[in-house]
């Protein structure tokens, strides 16, 4: 007996040691697949008549299977079907038939390879739980906030380097680990700090088109003192491109950039989700519209929509919930002429169409009147708007729980098309717009959070494309399917084995 115990005594530390070693094993991001993709941005090709461009996809690493999240750049000309033969054509151009003479029979084509030889794509590391991605095409910058610890806003340089390396590197450091140079949006939330101003859980970035400003939304309210859950306040973060240019120059000496308190403006307690900037002379010029999620206290004004004066940074609550009792708002878009906004709300899932009433005299904040509420499939999230020649714009909503894309047509005043089966939990939408002599097309790239792929949907826009009929079609998926690794209430998640 004693001998046995002695032997066991030897074995136990060994087991313990093994266990420790397992924990230390690195789990670096993978560059041959996406993993719970969220943020998605499209960069068009040099030649809009021929190429397909590239997309940047944030893998949110939702279950922390890997050490960090990451961003993958996919050169769409390089993606291939599993046999390595077929490639993704430009929007509106049919995908070649399978080489064996068969047919896809209308099913989406799976482009599981990132390169013809199933090789890797370039990636950079960012924090886990990435939000929405925003690309500045003029300055070749990509912004992706992440909601994990540190509340990082990652900025990436997406210009094509002269040395032929991939067009993706961290903006400040120039390296591939952007967790070392990301902007901490909530330094004040460090325990023991005053707490505000801070923007915990940054979610999206919106670029101003008339200035070099950009705005950051965030989900979690900041508390003061930090982590106290008292004095909750959300902030609108306004930064400028010149500000981060200076920070880039100073990075070797100063390290990661920390935005000054003057970049933060309180906008009341309640998450902000998306922002619309009103430039120039459109109704509402000089104001931002900020969509938000559920309010925190029952007695608070609802934050489905807020109006913020860009100059004075004063804000108002239009209280949309008083005219349409939804509890949560997500994506937001504005009609190009500024007279109307489209807000995806949940519970009940609807697209709320609001007319903007703009007082004639300058400086008056716009007010909103509800003009339509269109039922949507379950789980509306991202909203994008595409203009069409000769028709009202199309508003596209990703419906994450239903796994579909809804197309609202303002001509029709209803949902004009539903594309079901886009995938599991379609999250963000990026738009590739082509106006060619043979017609206008849009291609939508949709990040499927639940299945790890990017769905590709082609939408004819003009009368000479697909005979002018609105017939959006799911043409393919990019990336291998990740299956459903966790049980969710998502009905598209049928296979829980990887």
């Amino acid at each position: 007996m004693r001998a046995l115990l002695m032997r066991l005594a030897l074995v136990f530390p060994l087991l313990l040691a093994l266990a420790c070693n397992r924990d230390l094993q690195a789990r670096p991001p993978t560059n041959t697949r996406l993993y719970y993709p969220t943020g998605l941005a499209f960069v068009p090709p040099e030649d809009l008549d021929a190429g397909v461009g590239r997309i940047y996809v944030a893998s949110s690493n939702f279950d922390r299977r890997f050490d960090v999240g990451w961003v993958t750049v996919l050169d769409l000309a390089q993606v291939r079907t599993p046999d390595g033969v077929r490639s993704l054509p430009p929007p509106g151009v049919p995908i070649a038939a399978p080489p064996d003479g068969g047919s896809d029979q209308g099913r989406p084509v799976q482009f599981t390879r990132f390169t013809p030889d199933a090789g890797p794509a370039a990636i950079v590391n960012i924090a886990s739980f990435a939000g929405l991605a925003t690309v500045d095409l003029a300055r070749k910058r990509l912004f992706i906030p992440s909601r994990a610890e540190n509340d990082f806003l990652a900025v990436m340089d997406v210009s094509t380097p002269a040395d032929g390396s991939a067009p993706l590197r961290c903006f400040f450091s120039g390296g591939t680990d952007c967790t070392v140079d990301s902007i901490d949006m909530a330094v004040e939330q460090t325990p023991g700090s005053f707490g505000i101003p801070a923007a915990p859980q940054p979610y999206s970035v919106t670029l101003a088109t008339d200035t070099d400003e950009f705005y950051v939304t965030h989900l979690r309210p900041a508390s003061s003192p930090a982590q106290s859950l008292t004095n909750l306040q959300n902030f609108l973060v306004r930064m400028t491109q010149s500000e981060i240019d200076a920070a880039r120059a100073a990075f070797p000496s100063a390290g990661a950039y920390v935005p000054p308190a003057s970049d933060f403006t309180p906008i009341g307690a309640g998450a902000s989700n998306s922002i619309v900037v009103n430039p120039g002379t459109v109704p509402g010029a000089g104001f931002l519209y900020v969509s938000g999620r559920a309010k925190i206290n029952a007695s608070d004004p609802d934050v489905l929509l807020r109006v913020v004066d860009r100059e004075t940074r004063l804000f108002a609550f239009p209280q949309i919930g008083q005219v349409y009792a939804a509890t949560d708002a997500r994506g937001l878009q504005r009609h190009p002429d500024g007279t109307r906004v489209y807000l995806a709300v949940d519970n009940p899932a609807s697209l709320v169409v609001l007319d903007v009433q703009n007082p004639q005299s300058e400086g008056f904040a716009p007010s909103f009147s509800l003009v339509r509420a269109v039922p949507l499939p379950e789980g509306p999230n991202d909203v994008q708007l595409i203009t069409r020649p000769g028709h009202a714009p199309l508003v596209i909503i990703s419906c994450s729980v239903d796994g579909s894309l809804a197309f609202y047509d303002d001509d029709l005043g209803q949902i004009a098309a539903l594309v079901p089966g886009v995938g599991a939990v379609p999250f963000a939408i990026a738009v590739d717009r082509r106006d060619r002599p043979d017609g206008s097309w849009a291609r939508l790239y949709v990040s499927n959070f639940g299945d790890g792929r990017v769905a590709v949907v082609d939408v004819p826009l003009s009368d000479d494309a697909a005979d002018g009929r609105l017939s959006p079609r799911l043409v393919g998926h990019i990336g291998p399917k990740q299956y459903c690794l966790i049980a969710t209430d998502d009905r598209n998640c049928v296979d829980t084995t990887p």
Partner: protein
Amino acid sequence: VKLRLLLLPLGMLLACSQSGVAPATRLSGTNSSAVSGSLLFVTSTRSNELRVLDLEPRAGLTRDYVRAPNPLAPLSIPTVPAPVELATPTRYGQLGQPLQGDWIFARGAGNPSVSIIGAVNCGQQLKEFARISPRPDSVVTAMASRLTTDDRQAQLYFTTFDGNTSTLWELILPNLPRDRTTTILDPKFCGNYPASLPPYSLQPISVWSRAVVTAMVALPTVQHPGKPPDPEERRLVIASRLLDPPLPLRPGMVEEGRIFILDPGTPGLGTDPYNLTFNPDTTVAESFPVKRLITHGNVVKNEFDPNQTRIIYQDGTIDGGVQTFIMDAGTRVFGILDEASCGGSLDCVGVMAVDLDRTQTLPLANGGSAIVYPVAIDGFDDRRDDPTQGSIEDTYWRPPNTFDDGGVRNANRMIPIRFGNNNLVGIVQDIAVQSSGLALYVTGVPFYYGLLGFVTISGTGNSYPPARIFAFDGMTLRQINFSPNVPQIIKAQAVLGNGAPATFRGGPVDFQVEQGIWPYSETTYVQYEGVVAGIGSEPLDAGLGNPKQGRWPVTINARLQIEQGFAEPGDIVVPVDVTGTECPFAFPVLDQGDGGILVQDPDGPVMVTRPEALALDLDGGSIAFNDDGSPVTLESCPPPLAYNLRSSTLARHPLTVRGFDPSGFFTGWLGRMALPPTNDESLFAVGDSTDPTFVRFWRPPLDAGTSADVLSHDGLSFKIKDVIQYGLNDFDAGIEPVLKNGDDFTLRGAGYTVQFLNGYTPASVGITSSSLGIGGLELPGALAVYQREIFPLPQNTGADRVFVLYPQGNVILDFSPTTVTFTGPANTVDIGIHY
């Protein structure tokens, strides 16, 4: 025999389980419903199916969902993806009862197909028989369905839109006659009904370019009591929105509609040359687009003699009373204006009605004129429906088309039926009408309405107005007023700032108030140093402005109020400390030279105040001094955390006027008024043309033919006199002199209150989640009416039901107009809830 004995207990088991607790249906997306026979079909949009509620359960049981073949589960009818609208073939009985056929049709969001569903409660039915998609590249935008008077043919009309062109399709299906003495189909006839789709015909009827069909209604065939039916009606009323409307558009119109009549049965597709005009401006020919159209059955008035036996025969004739035929089925078409067509103003909010037996010539915006079916003439008066006052005819009254001298009436066209005066009213979600509907009147007795209508509006239970189910009178075309009063002042008194009674002399006189739409009654405060335009508790904690330098930051809402001119130079800023207490001293706001008071500082707009506080009275140079002779400054106040902006005698209009509803809810800034000049008076008036507006009118109490010029545009007016003369030599102050002085902090907010009733309480069904114990009852949506008998009778209390869908909670709620309290904010009695 043995086998039967064995089966019997099994059958009983099944029957027992049927009567068990209602299973959870997991409805998701209750966006549309339709009554067919004794069944209510409801969409579950997000699960792509319909559920069916059995409205006539066996005696003693509550209404429950029709069960699936496995009776533990409710029946699901899979349909086109995302069903959002249902239609069922309908005709109307001689007394106006809606009678449905054997089919339910469903269209989906963004879908080219229509589901054809068997609507009969039999084993082989209640399932989708087919989906038809005549244009797979289009989307179905609208549906309407009719049943022929012999019950043998069901007609479905639907439109598809392909991005440019709308196509109207006609689907003809066979239908079986059934016993119309009951809404329940006897199961012994189940064998007659098909188990698969019978032969049908489908054909395109018409095509329109650059127009979207937004709504349709199939006009019903008229069948008078005791007579054979009129020739089969084929006409449709079709509402379209023009994608390329004739320019220029009528001012205020962002989109234009064309609502027209089409007869698919006539060779050459006879289209009625006259369009329908749905427009609150009844003097123009253009129509707003409408998003929903409905019509009605015959309106027949039956006055029964209480001393005779009451008999209603199946052919619609009666014994024991007098029957008066009021209006043919399908004469009147109700439309919900499309709120998206007037740029967010109120012009295109509400329900309007058009009569198809009357025309009028009206001008077009780009010159010329058109003969149209105009907005219907309403019931001519604003009387309450009081059965004891001899005005019982009121609710069945339809003005003749001509005056006694033969001249065509063109007056008193209806005011849109809406339930609020601002954009907080949201949108009208749905509408339903019932011929000779019985409603429990405010007097506690059921009362017939020729056409009893209901609308739902979006909002929340605590919005203002609340999202309730509002009733309206579809015959006299007005809201139903449940207020027992005429507009009247019920209390006038002087008060201190804290609301305590005061003994000031004088006060408002010559108080006038018009009947109002909202709120029902309110209290008006005329205040000395009242808070200006709600600019109170303005925070100073953001570090903006510089109060010590007399620069006070303004919030966005305050800025808007100031820019609208509601604040004036001479108003005072009163600092508020951390305890919420106002400083005894206040600082007058300076004129910036142009009469405005805002200055743009680098960190935002500010108001600039004089550094010295305002004195108690205006005689000492109006600067307050300390005991040592130095002027009082902000240093004499506790550190301010916020400020209030109050009026003062230094301003041109020292008195503020504000409104509150009976529960103390601040209903609005009404404006400000000047002090009366010596031996003179000052007038305060707000109405539909003032800023802020005070639109409170629901129906002018004037008869047809009266010029609109004589109508008052003031919703509320009163005077304050410098001196009131009571008798020949009996004079008194018209306003207490202390209220004309400088800053007396003990009197801030003091003045006079006048509490009045505006004589208007719209009949509405209040529903709250808290009183019913179920969440999600904030947003009433689709409506459906179930009428069990051939004619509603008072003894059948609770039989007729109105079904309301709540898409937020995915709940179906039903009430009876004969048992519900139309003034109750939270009804709980005889309310059915299904989810």
